[in-house]
């Protein structure tokens, strides 16, 4: 009797299961994108994380943009610009732009967008990107004038990331309201935002570049990589971010899906502790480590070819890139010789400080390669907050080597090698006066030739002293429905306006 009851229960349960149907409402103009996490806030000035940016980039327009193919800086809200003096810039604001509530977008809004970031009380995480700006004013409704404290060559690159908010709207609403109910001039407007779950956007028919071809886009927060892949396979999402090279095979094997990939400006690197109590203070040991790493093998075998070995900390798209830099060859014999010369013939132990945020396969693969030349690497992993605390400590007692992936979202050497290696920078465990002079000079002039020369000199110092080993340029992988037409851009901006979703 009891057994029968249980059986009946199970049958009912099964029927209920079978009856519930899966599948999203899929029309040709609705797109679901799986992000790696939830937006922190949709106020463009209040955060600095990719998940937020991916969403609000579609709601707001930025002052400038990069050409998807060449990465050259072009106008978006601004149509043209000129540096009328080394510290004064003038931007012409496009005519006829409107916010989604119908009010016109003028230079005053652009000025306000910058001014609010510079307000220390506002506490914008982006302050550090714009703090060379002393003032931003609308000299007339279509002209924005920006003054900087010193000649700031990276200004344009930083303005590529500046979203324009409506001064009136922001001043009329309090901060949490602006964060939760963004109002921009972009291709999409926010319909609903269920924190932790999804943000739904709808097309703005009056967008100045024309009506978006995709009517609705939903950004979902899916932290687990395997689940994002499953979402693609089950049709719950048509685009998924943050896939690994091992997922590539799964995507490519599925006839309904396609793998999209694009080189980014992120450079993977190893950094050495040259200032602290570490065997890596000795330049020969550093060179031994550099010679022991077979970057090509790592890029090919471990990352499936989705990584481009580099010879310096910059990609060819970066301002300041010098193609004359030699880089390092894989030479384990030389490595062993250098170790013997520096007194470590009997073996050497190094502490590799890292965090689960970084791909631990890469960390372990590096450990494996160093083991081949007799360097015993001990991995110490901390959660990311603790990791940052450790490596940024001025005592330089964080260990011996660390792995990282650097991007300044600015495609400029000033955003890469300056923070990584300038004396006193919290990221730097290296100090060289010649290097400091070169990068300081390069960031105080707008003259491209001077900058080039100085960066060439700076990169030569890095090549000789090896405070770190540049590994490869990261290639971002996306999984998508076969009907999605989109080319990923090097700045990794998810601009839905540029996408189409066919049958």
């Amino acid at each position, binding site marked *: 009797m009891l057994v029968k009851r249980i059986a009946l229960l199970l049958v009912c349960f099964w029927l209920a299961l079978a009856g519930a149907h899966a599948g999203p409402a899929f029309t040709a103009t609705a797109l679901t994108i799986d992000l790696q996490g939830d937006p922190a806030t949709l106020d463009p000035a209040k955060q600095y994380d990719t998940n937020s940016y991916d969403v609000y980039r579609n709601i707001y327009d930025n002052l400038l943009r990069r050409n998807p193919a060449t990465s050259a800086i072009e106008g978006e809200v601004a149509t043209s610009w000129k540096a009328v003096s080394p510290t004064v810039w003038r931007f012409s604001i496009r005519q006829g732009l409107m916010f989604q509530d119908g009010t016109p977008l003028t230079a005053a809004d652009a000025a306000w967008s910058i001014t609010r970031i510079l307000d220390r009380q506002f506490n914008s995480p982006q302050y550090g990107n714009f703090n060379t700006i002393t003032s931003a004013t609308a000299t007339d409704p279509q002209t924005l004038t920006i003054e900087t404290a010193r000649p700031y060559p990276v200004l344009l690159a930083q303005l590529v990331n500046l979203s324009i908010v409506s001064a009136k709207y922001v001043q009329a609403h309090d901060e*949490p309201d602006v964060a939760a109910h963004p109002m921009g001039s972009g291709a999409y407007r926010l319909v609903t935002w269920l924190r932790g779950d999804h943000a739904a956007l709808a097309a703005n028919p009056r967008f100045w570049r024309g009506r978006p071809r995709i009517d609705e886009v939903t950004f979902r927060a899916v932290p687990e990589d395997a*689940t994002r892949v499953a979402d693609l396979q089950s049709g719950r999402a048509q685009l998924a971010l943050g896939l690994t090279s091992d997922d590539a095979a799964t995507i490519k094997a599925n006839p309904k899906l396609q793998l999209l990939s694009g080189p980014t400006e992120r450079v993977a690197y190893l950094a050495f502790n040259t200032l602290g109590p570490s065997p890596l203070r000795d330049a020969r040991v550093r060179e031994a480590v550099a010679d022991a790493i077979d970057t090509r093998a790592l890029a090919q075998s471990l990352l499936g070819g989705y990584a481009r070995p580099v010879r310096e900390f910059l990609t060819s798209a970066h301002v300041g890139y010098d193609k004359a830099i030699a880089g390092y060859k894989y030479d384990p014999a030389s490595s062993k010789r250098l170790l013997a010369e520096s007194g470590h013939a009997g073996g050497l132990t190094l502490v590799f400080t890292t965090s689960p945020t970084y791909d631990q396969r890469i960390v372990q693969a590096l450990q494996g390669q160093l083991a081949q030349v007799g360097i015993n690497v001990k991995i110490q992993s901390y959660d990311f907050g603790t990791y940052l605390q450790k490596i940024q400590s001025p005592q330089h007692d964080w260990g011996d080597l660390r792995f990282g992936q650097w991007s300044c979202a600015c495609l400029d050497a000033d955003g890469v090698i*300056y923070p990584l290696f300038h004396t006193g*920078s919290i990221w730097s465990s290296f100090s060289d006066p010649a290097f400091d002079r070169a990068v300081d000079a390069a960031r105080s002039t707008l003259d491209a030739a001077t900058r080039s020369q100085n960066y060439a000199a700076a990169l030569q110092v890095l090549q000789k002293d090896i405070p770190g080993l540049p590994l490869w340029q990261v290639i971002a992988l996306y999984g998508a429905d076969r009907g999605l037409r989109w080319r990923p851009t090097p700045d990794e901006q998810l601009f839905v306006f540029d996408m189409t979703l066919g049958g």
Partner: protein
Amino acid sequence: MPAGCRRDRPPRPRGGLEDRNAGVTRFVTVRLLQAVIVLWGVSTLVFAIARLSGDPVALMVPQGTPPDVMARMRHTLGLDRPVYEQYGRFLLGLVRGDLGTSYVQDAPALRLVLQRLPYTAELGVAAFGLALAAGMPLGVAAGIDRGGWVDRIALPFMLIGQAMPSFWTGLLLILVVSVDWHLLPSSGSGSLATLILPAVTLAWLSLATIARMSRSAVLEELDRDYVRTARAKGVAPRRVILRHVLRNAALPIITVATLDIANLLGGVVITESIFAWPGIGRLALEAIQSRDYTVVQAVVLVGTTVFVLASVVTDVLYSVIDPRIELGDTSA
């Protein structure tokens, strides 16, 4: 018992309902006061642990940000104040019901937690309900039919669930049920269909405990005198068991339920991450990883409040169901 031979415990209230109610009220009041102390203790512990564990500003800013900018940000957030001052402010806020603003999400911390609490509650209730609906009949059947196929085969099979880490079961379910069979959505929330897989994953953990509990409860009952008497009289033991067993099993099951709530916040974190479920488990994980102290404190406080209240309710229920148990004698 002969007069004069006193036992070492307070006399049981002899009166009727009135006396009983007075006892319950007193008990509840005492427990609630103790609950406040527990809450204070937990929030202080969390406050200390959070601040020991690192700096939220470093995690919020772009990679090239200079230290003086970060220092200034810390100052604006009040994070460079002496610890006792921050603690004082925190306590004052607690009393007023203001748990601060999230550093990361720029919204009141308490509101963020309360917005997502219903999702975890929904998942938890569904999971517990499932575990009960599947575990109890199974355990009872195994106990009655001791040594039979249910006891030997079906029960251990179900117990496997507790032997598998939930991220494994969850991902397997997604792969099989969603990707291969296309029966249910692979992630997210919003409909009953999306609730099923995460609830099953979470339920499978509690299933074993409930099944086991029911089985031992049944086995205990079967040994009792009244069952033997009933058998001797010819009454169908099944009816007897069902009526009495269920009443006696209710007690341990209620205990399991309260213990489960604490377990729940732990196990739910992984389930919510796997299924992209927007509950407070995931919120807690993300807040901890980004050192968003205010949100971490808010989640812990809300979770503790729920747990402690549930504890009190359990204890009262305990005594109501079994009048032999005195309030204040239970371990919870």
